[in-house]
């Protein structure tokens, strides 16, 4: 979970951009489709929830299908799309819940 680069944050185009590590958590239908319940994901410092979801769409087809209905939890609380993520954050992708 340490940043792989220690230099000051640069622009998104800068190859020296600081990298953070995020813990992604998958549940229910997304865990089945993803084939795992958690994974680490490297991203550029300053990434928002929405940008992270954009990245995931590129490599996870089922994510695209469910995305309109997904709410995100960051560190065990609901968080909006504009939330900026920090190194070590835990992000959960919450499809419509059905407990009870």
């Amino acid at each position: 979970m340490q940043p792989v680069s220690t230099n000051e944050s640069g622009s998104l185009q800068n190859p020296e951009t600081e990298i953070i590590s995020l813990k992604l958590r998958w549940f229910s239908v997304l865990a089945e489709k993803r084939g795992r319940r958690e994974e680490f994901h490297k991203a550029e410092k300053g990434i928002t929830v929405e940008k992270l979801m954009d990245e995931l769409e590129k490599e996870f087809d089922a994510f695209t299908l469910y995305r309109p209905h997904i709410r995100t939890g960051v560190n065990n609380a609901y968080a909006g799309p504009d939330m900026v993520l920090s190194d070590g954050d835990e992000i959960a992708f919450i499809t419509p819940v059905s407990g009870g």
Partner: protein
Amino acid sequence: MTEERTDTHWIQIGGLLPELGEVSGFVRRDHCGAVNLFEGVTRNHDSGRGVESLYYDSYDEMALAECRKIIGDAARRFGLGAAAILHTTGEVPVGRTSMIVAVSSPHRKESCEAVLHIIAAIKRDVPVWKKEFFSDATTAWKEERGRK
């Protein structure tokens, strides 16, 4: 399984459900004339299809945190003495209990309203998911069948 007990709430996500009498004993308070306990039970049908069993997945830590918020909100709104939300996970066959919600309050009306309010909040916000095992041997997560 994760659990949290304070003077005024008892939350459990996963694990075996306790006896109803223990839950009632936890929530009752001397100033409360009403105890209301709700059990969510796996029923043998859903939207016209036969159901054999349910399987619940959960994000335990966040479910606990959400339940804590829900109880805090309901306690203030309805003047509860105490409240409990206990949700099992894994397989729950027809006729078995998946969830217990229990509250105490000085008067009866608030106890029943609080239980309905808490259940609605759970079904909206607590990260627990249901997979249905149908009588025709197919299965589906609830969110695969469209929004509720």
